[in-house]
């Protein structure tokens, strides 16, 4: 009996004590909280260090997406690069899980610390490539897929990628 009453008073005391502690709530939107660069918010498409489109339209992000909200079509540029003819994310479906970023072999698709994506029209949540593409490399400044891949593109011949020997002369008999 005594213990029960004491516990009630102790609770009331502690709660009252919080009246004097510092508030955690911030005055959003006037005041913005710190979000780490790895925060999973609005998705962007980035450029490689040479300023070329990074996405090679491999479709891995689309297939990794658990809500299937990424759709794209591959095309081939004159210079031999694969690129997305269109790239669409339906953000009204996106759950910001970051699976697409995990799956992307080129670091093209990245999630950013921007979560402020309110719209009156659901249709406005559908982003096309021009809405997704940013002008920089995002979180990964150095990686350039075509420097590693064996595909020949303008300005990078066979054998010029990382760790590649120059093309074999198939007429040679030398060991």
């Amino acid at each position, binding site marked *: 009996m005594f213990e029960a009453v004491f516990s009630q008073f102790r609770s009331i005391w502690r709660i009252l004590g919080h009246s004097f502690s510092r508030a955690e709530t911030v005055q959003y939107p006037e005041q913005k909280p710190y979000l780490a660069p790895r925060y999973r918010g609005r998705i962007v498409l980035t450029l490689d260090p040479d300023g070329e489109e990074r996405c090679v339209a491999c479709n891995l992000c689309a*297939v990794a997406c658990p809500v299937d909200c990424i759709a794209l079509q591959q095309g081939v540029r*004159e210079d031999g690069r694969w690129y997305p003819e269109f790239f*669409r994310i339906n953000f009204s479906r996106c759950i910001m899980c970051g699976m697409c970023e995990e799956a992307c072999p080129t670091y093209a698709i990245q999630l950013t610390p921007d979560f402020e994506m309110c719209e009156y029209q*659901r249709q406005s949540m559908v982003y096309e490539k021009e809405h997704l593409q940013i002008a920089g490399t995002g979180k990964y400044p150095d990686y350039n897929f075509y420097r590693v891949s064996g595909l020949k593109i303008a300005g990078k011949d066979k054998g010029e990628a990382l760790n590649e020997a120059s*093309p*074999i002369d*198939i007429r040679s008999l030398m060991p």
Partner: protein
Amino acid sequence: MVIINIDGQDYQAREGQNILQACLSLGLNLPYFCWHPAMGSIGACRQCAVVQFQNAEDERGRIVMACMTPVTDGARFSLGGDKASTFRRNIVESLMLNHPHDCPVCAEGGECHLQDMTVMVGHRDRRYRGRKNTHRNQYLGPLIHHEMNRCITCYRCTRYYRDYAGGHDLAAMAAHDHIYFGRHTDGVLENEFAGNLVEVCPTGVFTDKTLVQHYTRKWDLQSAPSVCVGCAVGCNTMPGERYGKLKRIHNRFNAEVNGYFLCDRGRFGAGFVNSPQRLDYAAARNADGSYDAIQPDAALKLAAELLQPDNKLAGIGSPRASLESNFLLQQLVGAGNCSPGFSALDHALIPYTLQLLQQSPARIASLQDIESADAVLVLGEDVTNTAPRIALALRQAVRSRAFELAAELKLEPWQDAAVRNLAQNQRSPLDSYLSAESKLDDIARHCIRCNPEQIADHANAIVSALNGGTADSDSASDIARSLLAARRPLIVSGSGAQSAAVLEAAAAIVNALHRVNPATMISLSVPECNSLGAALLSSDVSPSIAALAERAVKGDIDTLVILENDLTRRCSPQTLALLYDNISNIIALDALDTATVSEAALVLPCATFADSEGTLVSSEGRAQRYFPVISTTLDRQPGWYWLLQLGRAARRDDFAELLHFDAVSAACAAHYGQLAAISAAAPLHDFVSHGLKVPRQPHRYSGRTAMRANVSVQEPRQTQDGESPLAYSMEGLNRDQGGLLPFVWSPGWNSNQAVHKFQSEAGGPLRGGSAGVRLLDETTDSSGSPAAKPGLPETGQWLLVPRYRIFGSDELSVRSEVIAELAGEPLLELNAADAASLGLGQDDALCIEGAAAIAVRINDSLPGGCIGFSAGYEATRSLVAGSRVAVSKAVDWASSRSQIISSDGGSRHV
């Protein structure tokens, strides 16, 4: 059946298999690369290693290649043990030493056998720090893309291309680890079956170039079981669709028909589905000849006027439209007013071919039967260009001798290198009587070149030799002797020579042979995917197009309905003028814009094979159903659907009951005794597998909530399909429904090699049965001789013989961009002596009967007095095979022969 022990467990296996085949048939996942069920084993890749033990006491065992080890009773193996799995992992690691970092930009990715095997063996990290070998690619033509860096030297490509398909221009080249698989120099691959490299190569070295340019991964392709419409062989296909476009054609396994392979016309010739010349909306013609697009109900209202009961109706069906569409047209206009839509020559020939097949006591050979033949006689049919897949089957048939020799030495047929080594150049006899060279000449014993009339004479000499008489030539008696000695002789002919005499003679040989050997087989080719079906629907009362034109002149036709048929390909401009001038109300249904469509008062846009369902009868007499891969868009509808609507618009009672495709099919079956079985050609629309319809989309189909989001973010319900047993959905199970196979995938097996998971044993027929039903197995006794041969003009001394081309002679495939590029220009061919007598050189041209000049090619394989013309080309339309014409050398001819393929010039992607 014998017992083998794998990892301590006993399994039953069929004797005669190898261990790899046995393991796969048992559902065990054993990695492999070089083994192919149609090509056997050579033990080149060392990937299928297992450990074999001497006996129960043996604990060390030794590593053997499963694909090279026959199943023996009591044999003991370890598949999952450390030794074998480490060995296999090391093999993959070594294959990966030089492998490029390409998967994201590789058109094989997601259906790559190398990816699958790498994951299966558990190889993950690259330990080798050295540099990777690289190669330059080759330009192999507009169909196939080459990326040599990705090769794992399994040798499947050269074994397929050279040994299986008889090609010469692809080989393994260079020494040691410089090895290179390609041509001696850049250029278009010559073989008609080169496209199969895309499926045979386990990596991304050879990929489908038409797909690479607008690529979609396998997991994103919506597909359905379909049938090739490129020719009458009826190969089974799996077309793939994404974003409303047909992306590619893949082979659909059917043990009795095409097995694992298609021809390039079939694989790359479906691009017409995406053609900008597709008709999108119904259209009515204005007084000035222009057309206005109209709503479907307005079109039907207009049709109702044209089809009112007191109008005299007539119809022209089509050998490229389904049985159901042709049947409904016949119901609509009446059988006596409905032409099957053949050309004048074919109108007599195709029904005659059908009749010969029906009467023939011999079995009509399926492709599988053809491969098993041990003596073949080809009469007048250049199958490589008219029914290409048959040519590939004939290449296997001549190997029967090799398998006989192997059996004597107790070699298994799958011991490929041994069997080939043993046989060297010994082949079963294949003899051909053709009017010019053919691609099968290299495997033929006698190639006799003569014109169709002479072919019939020679064939009759063989008949008399078969009946014990004497033949007038050595070759004829030679051929008769080997046909009599054979266990499974096969006679191949067809309507290609456009000669009833040739067909008649072929049937006479079969009959004579069948009396001594009941295993005799016959194969008669017809030109189009449903030629035989159209013939089955026609009868003595069916008028030819010319007969309809005569009726039109008499004023007996008010309204003419033309179903999916470009009449300019079928009859002379004079006949057409009679039709068009005397009939004001023409309703044309077609998928593509043609000259015929432009004559119609009302045009209804049809679906193609890719967006409709239908039944086709192949030259084997096999009824097969194709299902829509793409749901119909715009105002396009299947031909049968439009015809149902037309029947309703005309207030026809007999159409009121027919609500669905299955009902139309059943009505057609009920109407024609010979077609009674067609409803069983595929499961009906209410078929469910494990409680659900069969899905068209793989379980990892992506982008469903974004594909249409640009149009509207509100997601519509999935398209419902009430007409077929398939769903436009990823829900449901794709398992064990036999020929109704929309795609192949199995856990761990993303590539097309997954097909073994659907087979009764690896390489065997599909579980659930092969697709289609054979209609002509029973011999019927319809008597008769060829319908009256239309009078052929004889204005000169030069006999016209048709020369077909795999790319160019067929109507639909040539409307695909890449095939049009390869079709080349039409030619007139004649031998050097004849050319000299006309004063012609290689760069000259000829005018036939004063018509426009056509370029000449000197071809010494043609017999004297014959002019071969490229069949199916616009410039040669007026030429009638079998007629004799006068010719003159063209003056002022400038050759426009182009040397290169224009579209990519070889530069792109190399």
